[in-house]
């Protein structure tokens, strides 16, 4: 299969199909990895807003390093953590384009901490999609700044010891404190209802950019079945049971102008 169009059965119409903003390339993500859902949601939103032809994405270093093969719009590959700086460079030159970064927890909350804070601080009119799965996936499951206390990873084999390694970084909370940030929310991808809410949040975030309202970020609690050592279904449940209490879902910053948009 994998055709460009599928003929509907008699008397029915297609109500869901592959978004135009996605290519037809099979992804390399592990089975059940929620990157696939997040990529798809971003593409759906880009299609819904009708901005595919003026969107430029900036890919991170991490499992989603090849996201530029899956998105059907112009993309750049950034150095680790530097996507917000690259996006700044692009947006400052192409001010009418839709520019966003797509980053994981190492990229955004470790090596890229300065870049994301300052992009928000400058109120850069870009959108960041932050995939938080409490681990470093691509390099084989090491501890991330977002790893939960007690969580075993390949570089915290005895479980994360908060005495030695501190507590998880809560990026939505942190960025919400910054004046230049217009819209900072945390959602999750662990069940269909939450996925719908995540999609709505992405729409708002990109609309905030289109309206020139400043920096927007949607943090998405995500899974890493492979490195968590679980089935995809178990991983979704783990997000709900263990991640949500530490990373509460909700709206951390909704600027007046963003709220007025609705």
């Amino acid at each position, binding site marked *: *299969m*994998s055709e460009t169009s*599928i003929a*509907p*059965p008699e*008397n*029915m*119409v*297609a*109500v*869901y*199909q*592959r*978004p135009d903003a*996605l290519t037809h390339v*099979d*992804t390399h*993500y*592990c*089975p*059940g*990895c*929620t*990157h*696939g*859902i997040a990529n*798809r949601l971003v593409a759906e939103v880009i299609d819904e807003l009708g901005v595919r032809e003026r969107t430029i994405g900036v890919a991170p270093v991490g499992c989603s390093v090849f996201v530029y093969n899956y998105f059907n719009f112009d993309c750049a590959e950034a150095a680790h953590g530097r996507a917000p700086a690259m996006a700044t460079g692009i947006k400052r030159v192409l001010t009418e384009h839709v520019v966003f970064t797509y980053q994981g927890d190492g990229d955004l909350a470790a090596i890229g901490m300065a870049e994301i804070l300052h992009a928000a601080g400058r109120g850069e009119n870009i959108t960041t999609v932050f995939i938080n799965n409490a681990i470093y996936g691509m390099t084989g499951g090491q501890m991330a700044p977002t790893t939960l206390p007690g969580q075993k990873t390949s570089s915290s084999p005895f479980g994360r010891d908060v005495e030695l390694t501190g507590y998880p970084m809560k990026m939505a909370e942190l960025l919400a404190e910054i004046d230049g940030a217009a819209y900072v929310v945390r959602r999750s991808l662990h*069940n*269909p209802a939450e*996925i*719908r809410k995540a999609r709505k949040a992405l729409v708002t975030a990109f609309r905030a950019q289109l309206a020139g309202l400043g920096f927007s970020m949607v943090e998405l609690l995500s899974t890493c079945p492979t490195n968590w050592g679980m*089935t*995809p*279904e178990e991983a*979704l449940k783990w997000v709900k049971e263990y991640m949500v209490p530490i990373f509460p879902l909700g709206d951390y910053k909704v600027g007046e102008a963003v709220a007025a948009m609705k």
Partner: protein
Amino acid sequence: MAKGTILIDEARCKGCGLCAPVCPKEVIQMATDRRNAKGYRPAQLVDPEGLCTGCAICALICPDVCITVFREPAPSKRSRDRHKAVFA
């Protein structure tokens, strides 16, 4: 008559199993008798009674965008009005 149906791209499916448990009508199953070229056991629609409503919850959770969802279009306003006229 089924109100909806889905088409699963079996070649693309990674057998992750996220779609089957979320289907409200329980008409998706993971195949047990075959694997696709990538070695996964794909999801499949098993809907002999035509229960699928085309709700698209499966497509919502599918990370690999394997599922195309079809649905009967909602009845048109005109036909509803016609009924109204008949029963007025």
